[in-house]
């Protein structure tokens, strides 16, 4: 176990006192095996109890501790001290308004998530007596990867289009819509298309691919969005060239 003295440069913002955010530096005795979240917890427990940030599981499954670490969107519990030099800059997740210190306002994302109807909409109503849905492994892998999203919003912080066009529905929400569209038990694709196939939906995406690069769960939202573009394009041609075909 090796010890390191880390200079943590944290962006602070107190809405009741500050007109703008400012950096505050803390000198933190760390173990090289720590993650940035451990350093933040040390600060809160020993140096400055006023520091505010979200965290929960400390094992990269809850998605709470997303923040900018040296300008890169990361989960604080997955950012290992040994990957960094002795100066680490910590800021709230990009492209979201700052509520206080490292806590961002996530209402926009939550709204977009619900707008894509992220739940199974069965094709027909089945009575309980019909039994459970059956699904083969081949049907499962069509969408399994996209179930891994932990809603950490790192992809929104990385996506430059979301930064430039706040109306953009965004990577995680559209990838989740794709997850349900691909599920053989689901019949809700048309219900989702109004949002997903709009200009502010998938068509704002220009396949930068940053979202997939930063995703801590390897969901590959960029891939999901391109697949949604292909499906939406086929829809468009069917609608316009073969309008007699009922969906």
């Amino acid at each position, binding site marked *: 176990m090796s010890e390191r003295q880390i200079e943590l440069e944290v962006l602070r913002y107190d809405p009741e006192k500050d007109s703008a955010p400012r950096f505050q530096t803390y000198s933190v005795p760390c173990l090289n095996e720590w993650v940035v979240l451990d350093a933040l917890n040390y600060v809160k427990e020993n140096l400055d109890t006023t520091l505010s940030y979200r965290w929960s599981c400390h094992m990269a499954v809850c998605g709470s501790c997303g923040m900018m670490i040296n300008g890169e969107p990361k989960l604080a519990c997955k950012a290992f001290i040994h990957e960094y030099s002795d100066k680490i800059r910590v800021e709230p997740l990009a492209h979201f308004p700052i*509520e206080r210190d490292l806590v961002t*306002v996530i209402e926009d994302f939550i709204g977009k998530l619900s707008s894509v109807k992220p739940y199974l909409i069965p094709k027909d109503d089945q009575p309980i007596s019909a039994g459970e849905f059956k699904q083969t492994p081949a049907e499962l892998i069509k969408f399994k990867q996209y179930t891994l999203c932990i809603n950490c919003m790192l992809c929104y912080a990385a996506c*430059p289009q979301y930064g430039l066009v706040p109306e953009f529905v965004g990577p995680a929400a559209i990838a989740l819509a794709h997850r349900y569209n691909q599920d053989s038990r689901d019949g809700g694709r048309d219900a989702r298309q109004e949002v997903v196939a709009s200009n502010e939906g998938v068509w704002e995406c220009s396949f930068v691919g940053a979202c997939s*690069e930063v995703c801590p769960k390897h969901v590959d939202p*960029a*891939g999901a969005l391109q697949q949604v573009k292909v499906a939406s394009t086929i829809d468009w041609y069917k609608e316009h060239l073969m309008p007699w075909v009922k969906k």
Partner: protein
Amino acid sequence: MSCKPYIRETSKTTWYLEHPRYKRYMAREVTCIFILIFTFELVCALGAVANGPEAYAAFLAKLHSPLSILFNLVALVVTVYHSVTWFNVTPQAMPVQIGEEFVPGQYIVGAHYGIWAVVSLVVLILGVW
């Protein structure tokens, strides 16, 4: 609810300079300018052919200028970059499922490079034959 959320501004014109990942993206995107100009080079060649042998000789002469040589040289590098970046992302956009598994991305990319080599060879051979 937030009493006074602070909104950080991103520059609409220089945001891509902030990270190497965004610079690579912009480099990929601007390949379209070179492809557009090159395609008009082909259109002009066609126009020259339509106007007869003297017009076409004049077109070839204009092609012989230092500016054209420079452009075509740069366009070669740029269009190769477009090809490479296009092939590399194809498995993400069009995954191939066989049975209960997806074909590993590198096979799809590799197949594209293979086809690219064959097609290029065919175009070059047809070009110089």
